[in-house]
């Protein structure tokens, strides 16, 4: 019997997906401020690269719904949906993306370096970079006898990086509570999975590490819920790691400003037509688990949370420029063994 979400879980997932989408829409809008008529990444309230997660929300919520704050997530360069599903502080996250003093890292990190220790969330900018740390966090829990699983998110392009191989082998050899989740949006920037990956699907690679491998097709929130739930339960039970590849869709460009000329004609439209959020909304309505009113209320709440976060970010002060020189090292001595 595949695992089924409760109604509460479904509504939680829906809320997080909508929050994530609203957040990306807001970011996309604001990102373009100051970048018109000439698009220059350095300008506007949100400078730098911007990798949006539109379309990939099911991968975030279908997995993270099984996690609590104590569980660990290492996310990618495309981290917003994952952060939101992991309950990262939305205001401070927005402020970090704006490079503000109130940001999660006071502006030192930016959109690819979001860290929230309260919910054990981190992300990073190099492909495959979160895999080792997730394995290490899982090792830490095992050694300390503390609960918690680690989830490492990567894109399908990252599955060809050496770190993937090493991390999966190590996690398996040491039988660690970690789940590897591949968001397969079929593209690594302009390079298609087909031209970069020797196998059609990466879940078969799990065999090389003697761990279960699963593939979820069609960006299906419920199927992700079920497969991830089982993998996480397995990890919690001490039965070791799993690999999950999820077919998902990148509804935005690789980063903002990407003209996506490399996409086959019509591909994007087809993806938009299969947008997972309206689909999940219909599902909820069809099962009668919530009515239109309730969903509207959720959507309103999501918009409000996003608006507040964005307002918080906008109105927060810039960091002190000279503070750039501080924080390379922790200054204080540690408290000793029992700290």
């Amino acid at each position, binding site marked *: 019997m595949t695992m089924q979400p409760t109604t509460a879980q479904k509504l939680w997932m829906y809320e997080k997906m909508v929050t994530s989408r609203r957040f990306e829409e807001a970011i996309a809008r604001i990102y373009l401020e100051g970048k018109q008529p*000439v*698009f*220059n*990444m*350095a300008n506007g309230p949100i*400078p*730098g*690269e911007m990798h949006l997660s539109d379309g990939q929300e099911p991968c975030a919520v279908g997995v993270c719904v099984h996690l609590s704050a104590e569980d660990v997530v290492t996310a990618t360069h495309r981290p917003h949906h994952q952060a939101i599903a992991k309950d990262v502080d939305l205001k401070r996250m927005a402020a*970090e993306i704006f*490079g*503000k003093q109130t*940001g999660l890292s*006071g*502006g*030192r*990190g*930016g*959109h*690819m*370096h979001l860290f929230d220790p309260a919910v054990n969330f981190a992300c*990073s*900018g*190099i*492909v*495959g970079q979160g895999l080792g740390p997730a394995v290490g966090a899982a090792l830490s829990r095992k050694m300390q006898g503390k609960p918690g699983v680690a989830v490492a998110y990567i894109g399908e*392009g*990252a599955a*060809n*990086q*050496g*770190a993937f191989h090493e991390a999966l082998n190590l996690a398996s050899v040491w039988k660690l509570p970690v789940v590897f989740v591949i968001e397969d949006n079929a593209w*690594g*920037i*302009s*390079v298609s999975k087909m*031209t*970069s*990956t020797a196998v059609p699907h990466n879940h078969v690679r799990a065999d090389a590490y003697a761990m279960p491998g699963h593939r979820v097709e069609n960006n299906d929130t419920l199927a992700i819920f079920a497969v991830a739930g089982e993998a996480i339960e397995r990890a919690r039970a001490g039965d070791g790691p799993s690999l999950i590849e999820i077919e998902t869709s990148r509804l935005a460009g690789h980063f903002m*400003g990407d003209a996506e*000329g*490399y996409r086959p004609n019509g591909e994007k439209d087809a993806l938009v037509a299969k947008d997972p959020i309206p689909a999940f909304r219909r599902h909820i309505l069809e099962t009668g688990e919530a009515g239109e009113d309730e969903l509207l209320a959720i959507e309103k709440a999501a918009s409000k949370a996003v608006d507040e976060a964005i307002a918080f970010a906008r109105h927060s002060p*810039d*960091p*002190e*420029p*000279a*503070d*750039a*020189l501080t*924080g*390379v090292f922790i200054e204080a001595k540690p408290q000793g063994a029992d700290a």
Partner: protein
Amino acid sequence: MTTEVKENERKLTIARAMAEALSQEMRIDPRVFVMGEDIGALGGVYGNTRGLLEEFGAERVRDTPISETAFVGAAVGAAQDGMRPVVELMFVDFFGVCFDAIYNLMAKNTYFSNGSFRVPMVLMTSTGGGYSDGGQHSQCLYGTFAHLPGMKVVAPSNAYDAKGLMTAALREDNPVVFMYHKGLQGMGWLGTERGATVHVPSDPYEVEIGKAAIAREGSDLTIVSVGIGVHHALRAAEQLEGEGISVEVVDLRSLVPLDREAIRTSVAKTGRLMVVDEDYHSFGMSGEIIATVAEHDPAMLKAPPARVAFPDVPIPFARVMERYCLPDADKIVTAWRTMQLRERT
């Protein structure tokens, strides 16, 4: 003759100059091919392979998986087998995933084999910040690459040098690391340093690897830099000229071989040295250049030499913080004033 006049005025961005050098060499040398991430249909994230896929096809312009260790290693193997691969590491910041293939194979196999294996390849890689791309996408790492023996390292400040250095690199029998600064590429979306977009002859030509250029002559202060730092230095020189200070700007163009002669000759003339380096302050390029002069003759220095370098901190995202750290013309002028105060009289 009108065409010739146009020709003489032909200004290219560094991105286009690099692509032109590549395509011209690919036309005459079938051994040259290009591989890397997004260098095919996309034309390179920084535009430096634009048009190559269309002209030469997917066999010679190869998009790769995100497998830097494999494809840099493969470039070494192909070079040793008679090809002349050009391989792109999209951001120099990514070197940590594949540096073994770079510094232990590409750089050393010529020596280890006493020249019986040759490794004629070019590793192109983008450097630099200034557009808030965060601490894993904004580094220069000049010192890191220049420190390790066996690879030549070039870093052009303008399109003329970019084409000439690329052509020279493609005709070299040695591995060359070609570091191009994102802020100079002339891609609008990264800002544009106008000084980098200059006249580029359409015929192929070489700029000698290992030879610095005097980007501006002067007699009171030598500023040594590379890449975008040259433009900061030139701007500062303009400003200081108004105050009657004559600044000489040495554009190294190559870090390996390092043109120590050019540095010393200039400092011998001016008696004062400043190094402008977007790479980290310590244990890198700025120290090496100061040592180059000091070990030759410390008495040449009328004032303590100065560095305007990126401080020893990871590169912060926030614009105000990053700007605080990055070298620019103002910081150069300030450093000059400090140098003046410290000069023994």
